[in-house]
């Protein structure tokens, strides 16, 4: 049985847990925060360091003179100690844009398609629905690389290699089974009475779905949107193989190009990493409650 938060508070850990346990827990929490934020902090500090700061041994944890040179090089194409980045900076801007664009398009489409399918599988009765549902879920276990190698030829035949549309279609489809499963679970756990009431009042199924069930699913939609968005934005192998022309390269792929090209220019690479992590970090922080609820709820 799941107990309410208040009941837990009232019954209280503080009553039961001896001081040693509480201290141990506090240490664990601090360690976890350090572990989670450490690499991000290193990235931020590195991005505002100069090459000399980064190359001193033993390492300087903080730069002598904080500088935004790396960001300037990356965004405005200013020249760095290792040469000009003019063409790469425009490529970087372009790739951020195309990452965000493809992610948003794929997310909207994937959520729309999966939402109606998840609802239909959980609430509507039609012949073959069970079999189809399990067939779709079974595709969840197909690892993405199996697919991407096989997809490469199909996409080439359809002239969708190196197009944004191609990436959107592939993301949308590969995320759909997970999204359908999450929506199915979510819809199944919602109370059915409002939909029943709407039907009693003479609504059609479709209208009842739009006017009654859809508003009930708001939090679930927010969660699945965030999850699909994060997964789409983080795609690497698929765009590496299917979309690496200048107009479609997402930032994840471009950053690995930079790693090869600016191997030891840590400030520049870190600045790229910091900019690239902003969109997912913002989504994760704004919607973290929904995401957590959905991820842990889908387990129980």
């Amino acid at each position, binding site marked *: *049985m799941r107990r309410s938060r208040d009941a*837990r508070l009232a019954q209280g850990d503080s009553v039961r847990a001896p001081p040693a346990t509480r201290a141990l827990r506090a240490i664990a929490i601090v360690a976890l925060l350090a572990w989670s934020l450490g690499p991000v902090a290193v990235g931020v500090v590195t991005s505002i360091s100069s090459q000399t700061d980064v190359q001193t041994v*033993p390492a300087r944890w903080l730069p002598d003179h904080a500088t935004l040179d790396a960001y300037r090089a990356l965004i405005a194409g200013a020249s760095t100690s290792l040469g000009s980045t003019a063409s790469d900076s425009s490529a970087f801007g372009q790739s951020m844009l195309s990452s965000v664009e493809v992610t948003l398009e794929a997310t909207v489409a994937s959520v729309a398609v999966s939402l109606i399918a998840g609802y239909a599988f959980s609430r509507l009765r039609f012949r073959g629905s069970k079999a189809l549902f399990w067939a779709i879920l079974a595709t969840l276990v197909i690892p993405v690389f199996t697919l991407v*190698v*096989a997809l490469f030829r199909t996409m080439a035949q359809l002239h969708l290699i190196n197009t944004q549309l191609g990436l959107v279609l592939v993301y949308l489809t590969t995320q759909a089974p997970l999204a359908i499963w999450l929506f199915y679970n979510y819809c199944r756990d919602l109370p059915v009475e409002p939909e029943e009431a709407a039907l009693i009042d003479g609504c059609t199924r479709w209208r009842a779905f739009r006017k009654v069930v859809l508003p009930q699913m708001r939090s679930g939609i927010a969660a699945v949107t965030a999850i699909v968005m994060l997964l789409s934005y983080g795609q690497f192998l698929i765009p590496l193989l299917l979309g690496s022309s200048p107009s479609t390269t997402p930032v994840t792929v471009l950053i690995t190009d930079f790693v090869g090209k600016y191997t030891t220019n840590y400030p520049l690479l870190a600045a790229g990493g910091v900019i690239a992590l902003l969109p997912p970090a913002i989504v*994760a922080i704004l919607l973290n409650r929904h995401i957590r609820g959905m*991820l842990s709820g889908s387990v129980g």
Partner: protein
Amino acid sequence: MARPALKERARARLGFGPLGPAAGASRPTLAREEAWLGWWLVIPAAALILALVIYPMVVGFNTSLHAEAPTLGAPSKFVGFRNYSDVIKDPATHSAVVHTVFYVAIALALEIIAGLGAAVALHRPFRGRGLVLAVLILPWALPSVVSGVLWRRILASDNGLLNSVLLQLHLIHTPQVWLASGWAIPLITLVHVWGVLPLIVLILIAGLQGIPDEVYSASAVDGANQARQFWHITLPLLRPALAVAITIGLVDAITIFDEIYVLNGTGLNTASVVVQIYNTVFVDADFAHGIAFAFLVAAATALCAVVATLASRRATV
């Protein structure tokens, strides 16, 4: 029509209750409306999956049964499962499999041990818990390629932070080239675990919250201490959540690629099975063997996932 009858009809429509005699007449049309709508709502998803998942898989499987055509477009000979046996016999496959076993073992050990510790520390309420959980989820939210970039300076060879710290602590005497050493695989796994751990922790927290407090109070009365409670109550009751966590961790680790690619490229000393597939297909341009390899790994992954799930189920029953 009277209200109860309508209610009955609605329940019948939704499939929640037995049909009353009054609703019998209208059932076929309502059921047809429902089936009609149901199909329309699932067709877009089903069509996309058929076109972009099932169809390429079938074409890919067919490719894997033929010899790689010497020139593009030339007819290729049916060779049955010979590509598969070629892959199985290839020494490069063996080393990739061994590497992958290491990735998986290290990742799972770290994820389950650290995940259990973190979940136990975080599952009860405390001030600021929401904030801590929001921060904790961050590594999972970031693209694994970006995680790799963030970790690069830590793992760098001459002036990396790990080298600096260990030198200052006199644990090493010269800077190590970590990613060319025996530490390459454990360290890349660490970066991988950084991104996966939040999901594992969330799953285990959900599992812990499903354990009723009464069980603990009862055993406390019986004089069980916390360590005994953990072994004899928490772990057995957590088994379903652990099974999910292990399955997710397992599949994620078997298919590790991004972190390796960004930290060490396709270097053979750290190549996992997916890196090896990448090399086969996109460096050697050998689709037939690459797809055969991919299917073998997919089958092995599915098998591992099924075994993990079944093992946990049998243990709980």
